[in-house]
Structures are given as structure tokens and as C-alpha cells.
């Protein structure tokens, strides 16, 4: 049995693809056979973030429509032997994602021996997003500490709790809150919702806090999941989050401001 982990948010641009790449790479590093699927049909980007954009021949939709086999479409990661990528189609219509078609591919991936299937959901609540939500066993709700992102996350929770396959069968999707682009200095100054605030409002268990970090852009520039940058704050925060997902207990890092000199505090410094 494979576990489907859907990375979702409602609101766009909050860090779903960054997080999907990091989580999938982290699970593979921990020794689990993992595949990460781009559900953003028409606007694929996961291939770029994973650094495999020049190796995409077939995609998710071409497998559903029977043009290619799953083995032809899966791209084996060159850094991590346990990791494969299934790209989204750039040209086809998102209606190509049918419930039966997606369900069958997930079953086949499980038969191929993948333990984790990470689904990078598109923004919004249209077909690609609802398909990814529908099949979720676990949902990682990516939220920025900002009003519209928090509100959209709550809407996604509502959909998970009423319309997902698990909910319809009387069960529950495991929900995990991942707060990204967190700035502890602004939180301390009262300019940004704190992680406690967001947890209070959404009432979902916190799996990690990823700081606002220059390492994320650096990673995407070079097509390397940021979790592989072991010297970076964001990379370490993602490693901790994956470890917590796998049941480990780890303290939160990078959630309080770094100590600064008195002068820079008074002048309101920081980077």
C-alpha cells in the first residue's frame, strides 16, 4: 500500500512546489521509494524545481490517455535513487485528469513499489487541485502567515473533510500544517501572524515552519530541491519537517530572531 501525500494550499504562490520537491526528496533520502507528481496541468513547474526539465518526454496526462506507459513517463532522479518524478502536461486540457484515470495511475504506482506518492497540487479549487485532494491519505497544508493564505487553507480543510475519498468513506485525511516564508523578526515586531496564531486559527497540527530564505531562490535557480542544501536554514527546516512527518520529535528551528547587537535592534536592522 502506497501513502498519498498531497501538498496543497488554495492560494497560489505560497510554496507548494518548493515544498513538494523538498518533501519528496526528504522521504527518498530517508530510504523510502517516492514519486512526486505535478498536478498543475497546463502550468508545469515541478520539473524545473527538480532540475529534470530537459528529460521530460511523456507526462501524467499522456499516461492517463494511454499514449505512454507509466515506466516511459517516470523520470528517475539522478541524485537520489529512491526518487522519481512524473511531470504534468504543458499542452493538454486539465479535464484530462479524470477520477478513474488518476486513481488507476496511483494504483499502478503502488504496484511498482512506491511507498510515498507526493502530489504537488495547483492553486485554486479546480480539477487538478480537487483530484489531488480527493486521493489524499495525508495532506500538507502550506500556509503563509498572511490573512488570505490562512483563509484559503481553511477552505481547503473544509474540502478535505467533506469531499475527499477518505471523508466520503467515513474516514479522515491526516492533516499537517506547514508554515512557509516565516519571518521571526516581523513576528516579534507584531507585523506578521505568529506560528501560534496560525495554529490557533486553523486548529491543525504543525509539522514545520520554513523561514523566508534566500536559499529557496538559489535552489530553484539551479534545479536542486532546497532540502539538499544542508547548509541552509530552509533546507534544515524542511529536513526537520520530513523527520516529524515520519514520526520523529524535533524542536522547531529558525522561529525566533537571531540575536542582534543593540544598535542594529534600535535601527531596526536585519536582512
Amino acid at each position, binding site marked *: 500500500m502506497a501513502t498519498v501525500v498531497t501538498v496543497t494550499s488554495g492560494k497560489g504562490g505560497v510554496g507548494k512546489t518548493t515544498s513538494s520537491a523538498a518533501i519528496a526528496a526528504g522521504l527518498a533520502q530517508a530510504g523510502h521509494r517516492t514519486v512526486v507528481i505535478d498536478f498543475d496541468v497546463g502550468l508545469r513547474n515541478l520539473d524545473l524545481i527538480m532540475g529534470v526539465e530537459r528529460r521530460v518526454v511523456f507526462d501524467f496526462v499522456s499516461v492517463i490517455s494511454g499514449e505512454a506507459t507509466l515506466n516511459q513517463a517516470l523520470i528517475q532522479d539522478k541524485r537520489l535513487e529512491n526518487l522519481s518524478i512524473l511531470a504534468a502536461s504543458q499542452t493538454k486540457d486539465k479535464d484530462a485528469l479524470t477520477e478513474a484515470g488518476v486513481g488507476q495511475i496511483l494504483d499502478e504506482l503502488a504496484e511498482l513499489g512506491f511507498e510515498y506518492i507526493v502530489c504537488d497540487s495547483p492553486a485554486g479549487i479546480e480539477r487538478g487541485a480537487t483530484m489531488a485532494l480527493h486521493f489524499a491519505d495525508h495532506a500538507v497544508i502550506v500556509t503563509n502567515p498572511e490573512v488570505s493564505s*490562512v*483563509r484559503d487553507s*481553511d477552505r481547503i480543510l473544509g474540502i478535505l473533510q467533506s469531499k475527499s475519498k477518505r471523508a466520503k468513506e467515513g474516514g479522515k485525511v491526516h492533516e499537517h500544517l506547514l508554515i512557509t516564508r516565516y519571518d521571526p523578526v516581523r513576528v516579534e*515586531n*507584531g507585523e506578521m501572524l*505568529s506560528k501560534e496564531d496560525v495554529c*490557533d486559527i486553523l486548529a491543525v497540527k504543525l509539522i514545520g515552519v520554513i523561514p523566508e530564505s534566500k536559499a529557496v531562490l538559489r535552489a530553484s535557480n539551479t534545479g536542486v530541491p532546497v532540502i539538499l542544501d544542508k547548509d541552509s536554514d530552509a533546507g534544515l527546516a524542511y529536513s526537520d519537517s520530513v523527520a516529524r512527518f515520519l514520526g520523529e520529535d524535533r524542536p522547531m528551528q529558525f522561529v525566533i530572531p537571531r540575536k542582534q547587537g543593540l544598535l542594529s535592534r534600535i535601527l531596526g536592522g536585519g536582512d
Partner: protein
Amino acid sequence: MALFGLFFGKKKTSAAAAKERLQILISHERQNRQGPDFLPDLQRDILDVVKKYVAIRDDHVSVRLDRAGDASVLELNVTLPEK
């Protein structure tokens, strides 16, 4: 900002305002989605009917479904403006 805060004491921060607004909004939105799917449509239709006769704002009509024992009670509240 830090210096300003030191001299003038703590004002309510913008983050606190955000939290308060979100809590109110989200508890409202959760209540709405707990009911059956037709509640928002019903609310809109009722609003349209009442508006034919009285000028009211959208938030002057509220429709709620409460469970009392083995029966459900549809509670309809229409606030009419003062004459």
C-alpha cells in the same frame, strides 16, 4: 519601529488585528459549510425575496441549520432596518 514601541508602549499590533479578523471570518465560514450544500443558495434566494420589499444589506439575513435531538431546525433571521 522598535524604538517607537519602547517609548510609546504597546499598541495593538497589525498581527493581532489579522488574527482577530481571521477568527471571526473563519468561524462564520465554517458554520456555513457545516450545513447542507443548499444553505448558501437558500440564503441568497431568501435575501432576493426580502429585498423586493425592504432595502436590507446582505448580512441582514442569516440561515442556520441546528440539530436538536433527532430533528433539524432551520433558523431564519432577517434583521429589518429601523423605520
